[in-house]
């Protein structure tokens, strides 16, 4: 049994303009001890997916499907059980550490917060654990007495990581953990997260727009577009020889070192991600797709097996490029 199994998860926001689908039928699996990356542009539903895992979405969101965490369905959990699973079972490293820390409390008190909420320990014991956690993330224990504004961006992110580890969770969800940090600090923080999840045998789910970062850190990668997983497979393979044109474009968006040709090729992708209220027919990616063919607007692609153990939602991975599907639909 996997630690986390997401089955056909859909999230729809009710807005004044009608229902807006943010996540549309996502199925993912995360075995214990594995590292899964979720990539995609802004607005593709990756953060909504992360928040849905612990039922942190606002009441205006309707969630359907199943989220099995250690064999229990998160979506049907009672409130008390859900509170216990939050942080003690799965914790989150939020993006933007400055705003995720309360400016009026010392960071030590904030790291101790989940410990005191979930475990019956004395304040002195919590203080001792905070010092130990700070040491693990490479901060001197006396920084516990600092306020968030007295720390640098990288130090604050280390505090967030210490907080995520506080209750020994089985799963850490890192939502853009390195956004807004400079490149050197980004690398340090990623190495730190990698080391800690390995040492503590914690499963990791990283969400990022940076495919290179994910390919470097994770075992498997899922690429999302317009609320759907369009490709899922071993991280290296998705990054280097993508089966879906969108994953390819996302990988191309970052220059490769030692490949002068890649710097001269036009990079990136024309156009904007689709408006979730008005999704294109068929494959949602076809208006921007460089290799779109005439069947694309008429076929709703599923995750079909592609090379090796990867799967992709693109007609090009089918032997007949989707021709038979169109005939089926026409009949």
């Amino acid at each position, binding site marked *: 049994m996997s630690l986390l199994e997401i089955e056909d998860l859909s999230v729809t926001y009710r807005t004044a303009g009608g229902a807006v689908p943010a996540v549309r039928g996502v199925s993912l699996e995360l075995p214990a001890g594995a590292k899964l990356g979720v990539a995609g542009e802004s607005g593709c539903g990756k953060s909504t997916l992360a*928040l849905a895992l*612990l039922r*942190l979405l606002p*009441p205006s969101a309707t969630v359907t499907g199943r989220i099995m965490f250690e064999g229990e369905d998160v979506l049907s959990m009672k409130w008390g059980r859900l*509170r*216990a*699973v*939050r*942080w*003690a079972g799965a*914790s*989150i490293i*939020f993006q*933007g550490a400055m*705003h*995720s*820390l*309360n*400016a*009026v*409390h010392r960071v030590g008190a904030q790291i101790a*917060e*989940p410990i005191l*909420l*979930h475990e019956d320990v*004395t*304040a*002195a014991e919590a203080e001792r654990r905070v010092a130990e956690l700070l040491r693990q993330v490479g901060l001197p224990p006396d920084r516990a007495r600092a*306020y968030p*504004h*007295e720390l640098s961006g990288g130090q604050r992110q280390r505090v967030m990581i210490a*907080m995520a580890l506080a209750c020994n969770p089985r799963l850490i969800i890192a939502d853009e953990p390195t956004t807004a940090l400079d490149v050197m600090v980004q690398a340090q923080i990623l190495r730190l997260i990698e080391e800690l999840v390995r040492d503590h045998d914690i499963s990791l789910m990283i969400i990022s727009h940076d495919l290179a970062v994910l390919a470097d850190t994770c075992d498997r990668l899922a690429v999302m577009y317009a609320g759907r997983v369009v490709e899922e497979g071993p991280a290296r393979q998705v990054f280097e020889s993508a089966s879906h044109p969108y994953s390819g474009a996302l990988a191309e968006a970052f220059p490769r070192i030692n490949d002068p040709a890649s710097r001269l090729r036009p990079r990136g992708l024309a156009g904007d991600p689709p408006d979730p209220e008005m999704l294109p027919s068929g494959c949602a990616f076809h208006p921007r797709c460089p290799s779109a063919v005439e069947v694309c607007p008429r076929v709703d692609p599923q995750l079909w097996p592609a090379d090796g153990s990867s799967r992709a939602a693109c007609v090009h991975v089918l032997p007949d490029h989707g021709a038979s599907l169109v005939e089926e639909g026409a009949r």
Partner: protein
Amino acid sequence: MSTPTVAGPRRLAWVRRGRTLLRFWREFRRNRAGVVGLVLLVGACVLALVAPFFISDAELSVTKAPGPLVAEPSWDYPLGTDKFGRSILDLIWQGSRVSLTVGFLATFMSVVLGTVIGIAAGHYRGWVESLLMRFTDWVLVLPTLVLAISLVVVMGRGLGTIIIAIGVTAWPVTARLVRAQTLAVEARPFIERARALGGGHWHVMTRHVLPNVMPIVLARTTLLVASTIIAESTLAFLGLSDPSRVSWGTTLQEARDAGATSAGLWWWIVPPGVAIALVALAFTMVGRALEQVYNPRLRERR
């Protein structure tokens, strides 16, 4: 520190509380204006407490007062006298008892009510918010005086009635302000983090929302103290209080009735006003110092 004593957990907790208090005081002391304000407030309270030992009933009697009528400040009467021959200084001194009591208690009551209702409305949203806010609006549009008069009819006249009448009519504005600030704070990411790490409603409201709405609550408190002292005089003027009790408000009211402004009797009308202003100012200074203690970003960097 070096003597190894067997300390129980309760004793340790007290030691820790003491240390927190000490740290609080050290932080507070750094703000000089706050200390001045605190000294003013404590001084005013002590003076109010000891007033009966220095002022006899006869000196405040409208029939038996010993002084000359409406006399300018002199050696015997440093702040002059009123139309009954009472010393203005004695009136202010004795009046501080009622004014401070009403000012503190009514303000405390309305601020606590307003803060609790405001945070609850801003936190729970949905029908709870609608219900609380409609109730708030309803109290907000109720005429204060009519409500106070009805309360007096039901509860009988007296200081307690006045405090409750002001307390239950002054909170809606606080509730609206606190709710607006709560909505702003609730939208910040650390609230999402607090929920993600398993914090319940109580945890989020007390640990994360309350400290962040405290500045607005403190600002509101300092403004309210002055206005409740004035409100007390209005109610006293309408005969809803014990008319034989002097307060800063009643002294102002009497001075105005006697035409002190047009007659140029400044010694009668200025002192009660200055007293109210001083207490309000002291509150403001203490409030700002407290805000600085609660919000570490306002402290100067060391």
